[in-house]
C-alpha cells in the first residue's frame, strides 16, 4: 500500500519552528534561517523510520557544533559540557519528535521506530532505495541544520500500480 505524501516543506518548516520555540530557542532570538540548500554538509545525524501507510525515513542532520548547542539547550548545559551520550540522546529525541509529527500527518496505519543516531555525516547510502522528497535546510547561528524526508522507492512503485 502506498499513499500520496501530503507532508511538504511548509509542513516540515512549521514543525521545525515548533521545536525551536519549545526547546532550542524558547526566547525566539535564534531561529533556523532557511538556506534551501539540500546539499549542505552535516557531521552528525539521527533518524526514525516510518512503516505502514507510508514507508521511509525522517532525518535530522547538523554540524557537530549545532548538535552540541541543541543538546545544551535541552539539558540546560553549556555546549562544551555536552558529552557524546548527551549528543546521541538529544539528536534521537529531535528525530523522534519531528518524525512523530510527520507520522501524524500520514494516513492511519503508520508505525514509528525508535530513533537511531549516527555521529557521522548523513549519507544516502544509509537509506538504501530511497529518495529525498522533502526537506528544510537552514543555518542556526551559522551552523548547518537540516530535516528531511526520504521515501522508499518500493513505496513509490506500489503507489504507481
Amino acid at each position, binding site marked *: 500500500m502506498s499513499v500520496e505524501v501530503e507532508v511538504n516543506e511548509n509542513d516540515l518548516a512549521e514543525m521545525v519552528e515548533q*521545536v525551536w520555540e519549545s526547546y532550542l530557542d*524558547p526566547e525566539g532570538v535564534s531561529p533556523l534561517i532557511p538556506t534551501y540548500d539540500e546539499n549542505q554538509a552535516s557531521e552528525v545525524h539521527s533518524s526514525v523510520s516510518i512503516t505502514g501507510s507510508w514507508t521511509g525515513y525522517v532525518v535530522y542532520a547538523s554540524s557537530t557544533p549545532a548538535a552540541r548547542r541543541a543538546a545544551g539547550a*535541552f539539558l540546560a548545559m553549556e555546549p562544551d559540557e555536552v558529552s557524546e*551520550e548527551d549528543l546521541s*540522546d538529544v539528536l534521537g529525541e529531535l528525530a523522534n*519528535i519531528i518524525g*512523530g*509529527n510527520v*507520522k*501524524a500527518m500520514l494516513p492511519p496505519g503508520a508505525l514509528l521506530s525508535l530513533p537511531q543516531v549516527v555521529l557521522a555525516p548523513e549519507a544516502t547510502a544509509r537509506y538504501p532505495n530511497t529518495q529525498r522528497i522533502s526537506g528544510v535546510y537552514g543555518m542556526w547561528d551559522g551552523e548547518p541544520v537540516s530535516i528531511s524526508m526520504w521515501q522508499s522507492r518500493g513505496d513509490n512503485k506500489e503507489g504507481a500500480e
Partner: protein
Amino acid sequence: MTPMRAMVIDDSRAMRMILKRIVTKLNFEAVEAGDGKEALDLVTSMAEVPELALIDWNMPNMNGLEFVTHVRADPRLREMTLVMVTTESEQSQIVRALAAGAHEYVIKPFTEGAMIEKLALLGLVPTGANS
C-alpha cells in the same frame, strides 16, 4: 506540607530533564524512569504513590500505553494522574491512550506554558501558575 510527587517516564534523558525542570518548578518532587518497566518496578516499590506520572509512548521494554494499562489494573495506583507526553498525535492514538486510562495528553513538542496549563486543568497546580 508534603510536596506532591511526579514520575517522569521517558527513554530520552534530555526529555526527562525538561519535564523534571517543569515539575520541580511547580514544587513537585520528581523521580524518573527510562521506560515503562522501570517505572512500574519503581512505583510498585514506593511507599507513597506519586500523584502524577508524565509518560512517553514509544519506549523500549515497556511502552507508555502498556504502563498505563498496568497502572490502571492495580487498585493501589488508582489515584495516580496519568498524562501521556508523546509525539503520537493521531486522534486514534489519543483515543487509545484515554481509553486505557490516561487522563490527559500532551503532544511533543510542547512549551513549558502548555504543560503547566495542562496540569492546572487537571487540578494539580493552581490556575495561573503559568503567569
